């Protein structure tokens, strides 16, 4: 009941232009998905037909090969393999990134040292230098040392663009935390380990989770570096999608794969919305 009144109120509060604006925003976000969904169920969809002339389900029995969604969910599409690889790489990258960034962020947030601004700028360099430049140069080195085409190689290159983001987020969290709580625990006789486990980490947790989710999301979206280092042997969702749609035409199976590729991002977004938003961004960045 209360919800209904509030929605009515919102409806009344908004002017016609504001409503139009909201509609346009929704259209821009959701619009591109509509032809994708239709295409993924089409057998033959040619201009100028508004809807596919022949649907996949009509042809399903006649075809000797899996079509459309049958292809997408079959092992031939490599969707499952790519999803597992993407998640595996994303998780390892996130954990390593945290291990590297937590101590670094602590120092950056709390200590003053000579050349700190220059160092901070240096840390942001990977965000400025084009990925292609890093990728080509690293590929030559990795081929020499035998890391090209391996998970280790991909994980290492994924750390390059993720570390700067993670450091920035964690530094902000540490700055918001203050030293007082830890000092208080120390005065009350807690050991360093107890302080870390019982005081620092719980207070950092929302920020850490937000940073980890963000890192994971960045890692799962890296195309170029993965493409260089994976050498086609290690397939992730972005490289799979690229090889499927690089022709510039979208057939039913390509549309299906495109839809599948958006799923991890949407799931993470929902998690973030639901559990993290208030907590992390409120505590972590609010102060």
């Amino acid at each position: 009941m209360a919800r209904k009144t509030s929605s009515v109120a919102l409806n009344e509060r908004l002017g016609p232009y504001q409503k139009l604006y909201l509609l346009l925003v929704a259209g821009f976000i959701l619009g591109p998905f509509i032809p994708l969904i239709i295409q993924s169920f089409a057998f033959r969809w040619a201009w100028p037909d508004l809807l596919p002339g022949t649907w996949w389900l009509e042809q399903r029995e006649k075809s000797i090969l899996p079509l459309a969604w049958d292809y997408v969910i079959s092992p031939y599409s490599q969707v499952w393999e790519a999803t597992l690889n993407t998640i595996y790489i994303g998780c390892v990258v996130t954990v390593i990134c945290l291990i590297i960034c937590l101590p670094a962020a602590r120092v950056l947030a709390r200590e003053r040292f000579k050349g700190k601004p220059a160092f901070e700028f240096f840390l942001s360099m990977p965000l400025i230098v084009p990925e292609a430049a890093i990728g080509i140069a690293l590929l030559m080195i990795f081929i020499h040392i035998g890391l090209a085409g391996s998970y280790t190689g991909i994980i290492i290159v994924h750390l390059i663009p993720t570390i700067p983001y993670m450091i920035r987020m964690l530094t902000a969290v540490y700055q918001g935390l203050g030293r007082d709580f830890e000092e208080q625990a120390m005065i009350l006789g807690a050991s360093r380990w107890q302080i870390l486990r019982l005081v620092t980490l719980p207070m950092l947790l929302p920020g850490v989770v937000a940073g980890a989710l963000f890192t994971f999301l960045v890692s799962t979206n890296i195309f170029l570096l993965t493409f260089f280092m994976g050498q086609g042997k290690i397939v992730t969702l972005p490289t799979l999608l690229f090889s499927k749609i690089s022709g510039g035409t979208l057939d039913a199976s390509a549309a299906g794969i495109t839809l599948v590729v958006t799923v991890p991002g949407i799931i993470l977004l929902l998690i973030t919305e639901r559990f993290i938003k208030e907590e992390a961004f409120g505590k972590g960045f609010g102060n």
Partner: protein
Amino acid sequence: MRKTLLSLSVIGSLMAGTALAQDATAFRDGFVAGDVSWEDVQTRAKEEGEINLYYWGGSDKINIWMDSVAVPALAAEGVKLNPVRITGTKDAVDLVLAEKGAGKGLGEGSVDAIWVNGENFATLKRQDALLGAFADKLPNSVNIEWNPEDPRALLNLRDFGVETNASEMPWSGQQYVCAVNTARVSGDAPSTFDGMMSYLEANPGKFTYVKPPHFIGNTFVQAAMYAHNPDGNGAVPFQASIGEMGAAELARLITPGFEYLKALEPHLLGAGGTARYPEDPKALDGLFLNGEIDFSCQFGLYGVATGLRDGTYPEGAEQFVFPEGNMIKNKNYLVIPGNAPNPAAAMVMANYMASVDSQATKLEIAGMPPGIDPWRLSAEDSAKLDAASPGLVGVTQADLDANTAPDTNATLVDVIEATWLEYIERDSSESIEAIVANAVANLK
């Protein structure tokens, strides 16, 4: 865990590298000299355990055949086939050359075999990155005509005019065939370049071809060069290399062809504005399906049949003869690079690919025409291939055979491609002689 194992295996392979390389080199030399029995190859292949085949992965049909037929068949021979799907064959060639540049020799690289033809093979050969003459020593190579006295063996002995020396195995034979959308074109489709011009004058913008340097676009340009050859002998002079022919002679031969393409350009897709050339065959298929163009030309004897089967071709699609007498025919191959990590497994794979069973299933499922030669087969095997064929649509095999032309020498392809980019795409005001001379100079 997986990561630790991987890094351990990396360290392990670095240490074992040198010994392995010497061993692999001895094996290769023995095999190429004909001293290694096939049983020994099979035993060694099982020890190597796997083989990485790099191929263009843009076709669902080929991917399905590879995963559902080839992988289990090789697993039965004790070899794990890793089909690596790539977007451009050149990527795999570059990888081989990069690894070669980094000092990785036989047994140490990462590419065991690549699906190639034409320029990519010529590049590997020029860079001395081939394993050697393996293809005519495989047991199933009896299915392939190697006798140089038989004119039909030419497609096995020369790849775009470059001698293969059995360092690649013919995998599939293709012909450049055009399709017409009969739902949009009433009457006969044009069968000559002049006929195409008149059709486009009446129906502006209803045709285009794939943009060179994609080989499908290069092939259209080559057919135009043959048809406009001022000496009237079509493909004949284009079999020589640029070294034998010389820049001035090539310029003379291709000038009328390029003038035709220049005159054709304003009538192509996008007529009135800038001509639009699709980047690859998939984009071309999209234009054809949507009726933006009435004709679509690419390699694909069974392209229309399989396209109708999976909905990528419009319902009225049929094949037709164009250009008369100059429908380029060639083969594509599986090559083993000189730094293949698993040379014996690669040979077992190539041998499987040359078998009648694999060729027949590949034809049926992927629509890829056989690369083995039917006259070398028993009547039974030959019938098996015929039965697997998805079939021609609107033309007969006799029509196609009567209009066949060979492809162009790979060294000329480079120059013709560069000339197209300069003369047509960049709209250079220089004469064709100057452009060709320039392109030839840049080759070296």
